[in-house]
């Protein structure tokens, strides 16, 4: 109990002093996860929209697969991306293993199925409501997909958040492809794992508090945006 109290006190001390090392780790974490979610959104939203309004053979199987991929174990993603990016791997020539770029790729792979599957559900629900009206106005499925993406934009913010939460919280993938190199690829989750095993509980706990706080803040902000938008646009 005493340990915990001391850890908390030191943690808030580090946060309060904006400890340089802490800031560096938090900044890299945010950069990696935000970039990963951005790439995942670029791939996942069109995929989700296509599955929502498209009618083709194998659609049902793809949806089941996508839903299952939401639960991809990060370490497995990390391992696969590691193999692809390693010297001997097909993408080895780029030499990005153990760089933030590799971490962005791994997290994007992890998050894309989440964004695609959740946006598919959101857009399909909207399609049920809009279908007759849009078809009556002469919209083809491609028009409809873009229209629905735009019309569900506030719900899709929440979808992106789910992806961000997943990316920011995972350890396994970034640990494997990033290597947790001090000052280069160390992010909050890998640092927490390391500092805990080293016994530096205050730093680990400080990072943990920041991580949880950040996730809460991002969600609160998105919720405010969503509420305001719904009030304004109905």
């Amino acid at each position, binding site marked *: 109990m005493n340990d915990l109290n001391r850890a908390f006190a030191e943690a808030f001390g580090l946060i309060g002093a904006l400890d340089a090392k802490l800031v560096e780790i938090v900044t890299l974490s945010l950069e990696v996860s935000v970039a990963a979610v951005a790439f995942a959104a670029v791939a996942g939203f069109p995929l989700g929209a296509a599955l929502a309004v498209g009618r083709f053979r194998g659609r049902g199987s793809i949806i089941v697969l996508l839903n299952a991929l939401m639960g991809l174990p990060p370490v497995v993603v990390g391992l696969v991306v590691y193999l692809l990016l390693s010297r001997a791997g097909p993408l080895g020539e780029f030499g990005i293993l153990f760089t933030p770029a590799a971490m962005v790729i791994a997290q994007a792979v992890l998050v894309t199925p989440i964004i695609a599957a959740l946006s598919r559900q959101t857009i399909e629900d909207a399609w049920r*409501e*809009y279908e*007759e*009206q849009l*078809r*009556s*106005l*002469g*919209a083809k499925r491609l*028009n409809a997909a873009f*229209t629905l993406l*735009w*019309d569900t*934009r*506030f719900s899709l913010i929440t979808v992106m958040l789910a992806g961000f939460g997943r990316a920011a919280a995972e350890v396994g993938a970034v640990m494997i492809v990033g290597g947790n190199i001090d000052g280069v690829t160390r992010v909050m989750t890998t640092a927490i794992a390391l500092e805990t095993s080293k016994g530096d509980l205050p730093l680990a706990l400080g990072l943990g508090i920041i991580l949880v706080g950040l996730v809460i803040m991002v969600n609160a902000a998105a919720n405010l945006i969503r509420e305001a938008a719904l009030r*304004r*646009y*109905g």
Partner: protein
Amino acid sequence: MLPLELRDVSFAINGRTLIDHVSVEIGAGPRTVILGPNGAGKSVLMRLCHGLLPASAGRIIWRGAGSADGSRQAMVFQRPVMLRRSALANVVYGLKLAGVSRAERELRAADVLDAVDLSAVSGRPARVLSGGEQQRLALARAWALNPEVLFLDEPTANLDPNATRDVESIINQICAGGTKIIMSTHNLGQARRLGDEILFLSHGRLVERSPVEQFFKQPASAEAAAFIRAELPWN
């Protein structure tokens, strides 16, 4: 593209026949009201005509000249579906899908919003407008397309009397512009006010087709007579 011919059209889903061998020809001119109790198949029949549902049997043919594909038609639904954008943008959206040039879209949209008395709220998000305003906006969106045929599926079923009056007045204006009106309702008063001819539907069958005066004075079918008797006290 009129006349519209239905040749022995049926529609069944999950083993239930909703439209049962309907044959009818609907020409330009008189306002056609499809009348019948709930569940008679009015909405399904209009969706078949509009092309939203495929007929299970029979054929639906636009026999007239021009737009043989029946592309110059529009439909207004019982519950308007508005996009999350401004009232004006909702009308512009329909014009864009119809291939109207960018320069012309806004002008036409502004004109038609003026005609339905929504100019004052043209910049407001469409989904926060009142039910009556949204239905007027839906009419404007359809009207802007300048359709040869306008289908209206119980357009006032969810509206209060004032909003209903506004909507009926707009329908009359659209009709005066030369657009053929085909409307469904179960409201006898409205059928009388807006209809020139009545198609009476019961259990998916077309039971009777009569001019409106004759229909209410001397319905030719027992079903229609019963329907009028049952409904009249409330109208």
